[in-house]
């Protein structure tokens, strides 16, 4: 059959190519002349491409200089295909939630004809990113670690208390049901790596077994909330011991709040420490989160979501390998990710073994 579709615009990240396209888009959005400069690509993250730039906007006699972040959903990226709209709608809905700092969101575009990929533009937030595996927790002042732990806990609790049905997210996620949100996630990640349609032998047996176990054991959610999907130490910015922004909302969805609780507490994010993300005392987190969020911490459900979290991690790693194998990967770090699959599946095996004992 002849392919009559219009060829997609090639994504070119060179500022000489990117800046004029984005400039035209922003001028139409803001109804004002815009000059872009100071392009810088950040190495952080493995999924969306993150670039910083400065926009000078001239509105009548007013000249404003904005420090901005451009997040691009590369069609060859780790979790492609991307859509910027859900992240935009969520950030727009969360702009003034007490205790939940998020970047100021400016605009988004899912039309690949503009720069060659979906993108989102937010304000740049000051701060650095504590990483569990860099041992930063031991280098910071104890009081800073305490305040970061408290604010991390409160931010998650605040997120899970948002009445999302009263926002534009109600339309986006209206179909989410307490008895299906867990299975929806299992199927989403199985589909991400083609487990449903792929030749079965190409799937690691542990991955297939985990999918069957997750389908069978899926719990009903006591409540359906906004779930960040990657809420953990490493995905927030901090300055002087205070969280300045919760980042990386690309996996946001409606689901069981215990999914976020389990994900944040996964051992793979703790760098060998018993603390959550190598930073937060587990008991203190549990007590404060449950009290603030009004969410009952059901150990069996948290265990289920820990298994689901590792299944999701493994799906991402398999997806990375598939992109390298097919020649679609633009980022060679995906090949390194693929080497983590055995460790992740071993942890998955341990959790399922403990759950059935």
């Amino acid at each position: 059959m002849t392919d009559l579709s219009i060829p997609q615009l090639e994504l070119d990240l060179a500022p000489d190519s990117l800046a004029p396209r984005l400039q035209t888009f922003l001028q139409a959005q803001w109804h004002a002349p815009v000059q872009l400069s100071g392009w810088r690509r950040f190495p952080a993250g493995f999924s969306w491409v993150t670039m910083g730039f400065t926009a000078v906007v001239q509105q009548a006699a007013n000249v404003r200089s904005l420090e901005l972040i451009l997040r691009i959903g590369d069609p060859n990226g780790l979790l492609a295909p991307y859509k910027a709209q859900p992240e935009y709608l969520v950030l727009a809905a969360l702009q003034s939630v007490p205790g939940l700092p998020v970047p100021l969101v400016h605009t988004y575009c899912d039309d690949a004809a503009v720069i060659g990929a979906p993108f989102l533009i937010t304000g740049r937030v000051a701060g650095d990113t504590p990483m569990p595996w860099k041992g930063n927790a031991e280098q910071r002042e104890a009081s800073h670690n305490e305040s970061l732990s408290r604010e991390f806990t409160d931010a998650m609790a605040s997120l899970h208390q948002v009445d999302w049905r009263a926002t534009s997210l109600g339309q986006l996620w209206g179909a989410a049901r307490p008895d299906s949100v867990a299975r929806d996630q299992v199927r989403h990640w199985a589909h991400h790596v083609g487990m449903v349609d792929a030749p079965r032998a190409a799937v690691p047996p542990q991955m297939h077994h985990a999918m069957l176990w997750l389908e069978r054991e899926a719990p009903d959610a006591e409540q359906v909330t906004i779930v960040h999907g990657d809420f953990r130490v490493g995905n927030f910015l901090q300055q002087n011991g205070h969280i300045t922004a919760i980042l990386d909302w690309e996996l946001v969805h409606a689901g069981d709040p215990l999914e976020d609780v389990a994900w944040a507490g996964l051992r793979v994010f703790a760098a060998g420490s018993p603390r959550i993300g190598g930073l937060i005392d587990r008991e203190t987190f549990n007590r404060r989160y449950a009290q603030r969020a009004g969410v009952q911490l059901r150990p069996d459900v948290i265990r289920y979501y820990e298994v689901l979290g590792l299944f999701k991690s493994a799906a991402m790693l398999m997806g990375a390998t598939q992109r390298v194998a097919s020649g679609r990967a633009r980022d060679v770090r995906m090949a390194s990710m693929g080497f983590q699959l055995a460790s992740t599946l071993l942890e998955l095996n341990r959790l399922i073994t403990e759950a059935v004992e």
Partner: protein
Amino acid sequence: MNIALSQLVQALRRTLDDNVLPELHTDHARGQLAAVQDILGKLETMAVWSPDAMAQQIAVLLQACADFRAAVARAGVDLCLPYTPLASGDDDTMLNAQAQLINLSDWLFDAGANLARPIQAELNAILLQAMREQLFIQRKLIPLTDFGAMTSAASP
């Protein structure tokens, strides 16, 4: 290990060409990269995953399949278990052994769900143990990865 080594080397060479070469600013650095490309190109057709590790994994998976069938027979259960014939060649044999284990998992979570709990648990333990051993064999070959070095800026 779910990707052929030749494909992995091709991906490395593509990244060096597309993402690294355009950002090199000295002839010396470009010369060094050309040499690395040359060696990778030669390795591309020579490199294979460890045949010993592959054979160990196949042995573990096939033994588990045999143990599973024996346990079902011992329990006196007359159920038709799926069977996948063996193929030849290490890669094919590996895929075949994986397919057998996957088929047994499907059976256990479907028809096997009607078995008494102790036999269900025994069969599940056989599968989990085999998958664990397979993954241990794979992991032994893989040194730790420093993702911090891949995601940090030289100057924040």
